[in-house]
């Protein structure tokens, strides 16, 4: 007989998720989590307010109910709804043993990544380029850094394929083989303004290097976590739906208008996006998630932390272009040698 309690007999300890913001208004409570708002009114709002302080993940439901002179069943009804809405977790001793299927992970990953990417889309550099306020160094720097990032497929995708777990190997091999030439698409655009040898010898910003090195380190350590992070980056390219596609078109349109010399560069950006879409990379991660064995909480957290860090590195990538090229306006950046210093 197992010494472990079954799920139904484990005391559940409700936790208001750490990322939930609680806004109180007369007669109602609004819970903000990721991109959602959950509104509680009347009795539900009152009951939530009564128990909020004890939603600390340490107190069992029955103990909270006893303290509030409420029935556990009433609390459980509300807590069940809040759990479904994603704002409360019902912690139990079994949490660490619970496994998440690849497809469950896919759904969680997508929801989180869309939220984490908001900081990238809100970055002020986009607005500067669209309104023509970005300097020549920032605009050309943007093109060079995109080139360096795409060209780095040789590094991180190569490392990923050569360190792949058995179930991920076919996906990572295919991804490398399909992507390693994409840097050349950007290089073609840059060649409208710069000689080939200068482009090939140019050097990325530390912030772009940071993004590439982070991918490299993840690729060597965990195939699945690496791809969970890479997928977040891929989500910014797979503009399959019409709204996102229109925003991208508008961005390039404004860039052509304010910076006519970037015409060929923009052609290369668009050619790359189309090449990615034609390869069906949007589906690659679903296929991977379908093929991985169920994941432990530790594995889920590892992969999601990599994805979150990747979003932060992407913000850093944008920041580097915006801030560094504003302060140090040399573009392209060439490596130093014995005479340059």
């Amino acid at each position, binding site marked *: 007989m197992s010494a472990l309690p079954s799920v139904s007999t484990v005391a559940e300890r409700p936790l208001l998720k750490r990322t939930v913001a609680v806004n109180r208004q007369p007669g109602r409570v609004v819970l903000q989590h990721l991109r959602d708002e959950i509104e509680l009114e009347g009795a539900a709002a009152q009951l939530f307010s009564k128990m909020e302080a004890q939603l600390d993940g340490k107190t069992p439901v029955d103990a909270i109910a006893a303290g509030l002179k409420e029935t556990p069943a009433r609390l459980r009804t509300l807590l069940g709804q809040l759990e479904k809405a994603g704002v409360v977790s019902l912690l139990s001793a079994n949490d660490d043993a619970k496994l998440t299927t690849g497809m469950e992970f896919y759904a969680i990953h997508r929801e989180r990544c869309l939220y984490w990417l908001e900081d990238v889309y809100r970055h002020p550099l986009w607005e500067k380029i669209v309104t023509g306020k970005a300097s020549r160094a920032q605009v050309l720097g943007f093109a060079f850094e995109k080139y360096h990032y795409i060209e780095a497929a040789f590094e991180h995708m190569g490392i990923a394929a050569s360190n792949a777990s058995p179930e991920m190997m076919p996906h990572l091999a295919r991804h490398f083989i399909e992507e390693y030439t994409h840097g050349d698409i950007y290089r073609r655009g840059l060649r409208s303004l710069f000689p080939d040898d200068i482009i090939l010898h140019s050097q990325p910003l530390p912030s772009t290097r940071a993004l590439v090195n*982070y991918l490299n380190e993840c690729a060597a350590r965990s195939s699945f976590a690496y791809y969970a992070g890479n997928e977040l980056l891929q989500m910014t390219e797979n503009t399959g739906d019409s709204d996102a596609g229109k925003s991208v078109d508008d961005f390039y349109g404004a860039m052509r208008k304010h910076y006519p010399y970037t015409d060929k560069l923009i052609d290369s950006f668009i050619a790359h996006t189309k090449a990615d879409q034609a390869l069906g990379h949007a589906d690659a991660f679903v296929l991977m998630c379908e093929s991985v064995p169920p994941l432990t*909480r530790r594995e889920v957290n590892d992969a999601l932390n990599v994805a979150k860090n990747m979003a932060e590195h992407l*913000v*850093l990538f944008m920041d580097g272009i915006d801030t560094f090229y504003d302060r140090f306006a040399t573009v392209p950046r060439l*490596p130093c040698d*014995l005479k*340059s210093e």
Partner: protein
Amino acid sequence: MSISHRQFRAKRVYEVTPRGGQRELRLSDRIVELGDQEFDWYQKVRSWLPSIRGLADLSKDLAMDEAKVPKFLEALEKSGLLYRVESPDKPMTGLEFHGAFSGILSSWLSEAFEHPFWERMMSGRGSARLFTGWLIELYHYTKNANRHMPLSCAQSHEKPIKQLRAKHYAEEWNHYHYFMKSLKALGFTEPQIADSVPLPMTLALSNFMRQAARHDVLAYSVCSAVLEGTTTDRGTYSPYYQKSADLYGVPQDAVTPIFAHLDLDVKYQHSDLFRDILETVPVMPPERASLVLDYGHQLVEHIWLWTDNIEKYYQVDSNLVPRRPFDVVLD
């Protein structure tokens, strides 16, 4: 004689200061003065050099007769602002390389620490929060030495260099405790700090050091030397820590461990390590010397962006301090 943009490259200018209708351009070894028009021409030459545009285009940009452009480029070369790419460099000894590195280190450090953050902190426009953020990231950076220092030993092939790198690691590996002590004096608990997550640029520094360690142990060592260069004497950092403590009410207990750490670095003479390593290198081909130098300068740029990342994150009051990892159940 025909002349083309492929023959020249621009020397690094560390600072441009307007002074009485002129501009002073600070190079590592001299100051060059240019009038307004010359400065404008110089900037046009700089952006023309790496481009595909021909001499006729430059002549148009400068509104200068095409025949006169080569003379102007040569004048810029003579002043030290341009140099010729094709003149070959000779191999040098490790110690000769150290001499060249020492000659530019102070210019590099001035570039690394010219970020406005420092002036802001020293002039009272900073905050205790920014001071704390800097300390947290220093804690992570110092702890992450364990990700790159032993790797540099593993990737070294020469016994004397392996030995020197290993000794350095043995002396440094646990120095993050000094920053933990400081942070505890600021009211944080040990698990809060130990379980926290560094900023991306803090992680980037140690990832870059790992990249250098895998590439060439001298490339790694120059990065280490740039960082140690900031702690050669107490005069470099002490004013920042002491003044911040005074301005932002930082308890002395939070500053004392930092000084103890700086003193230990001086005691171990870590700033001499690069020289000791280079002493064992009989010859450096110019390609290797350039590669090593380039790693050093990339590290300088990393420090600048690291500072920027710290300022941008910690100046926002709503951002979490310290940063915690994501958990699928708790978040």
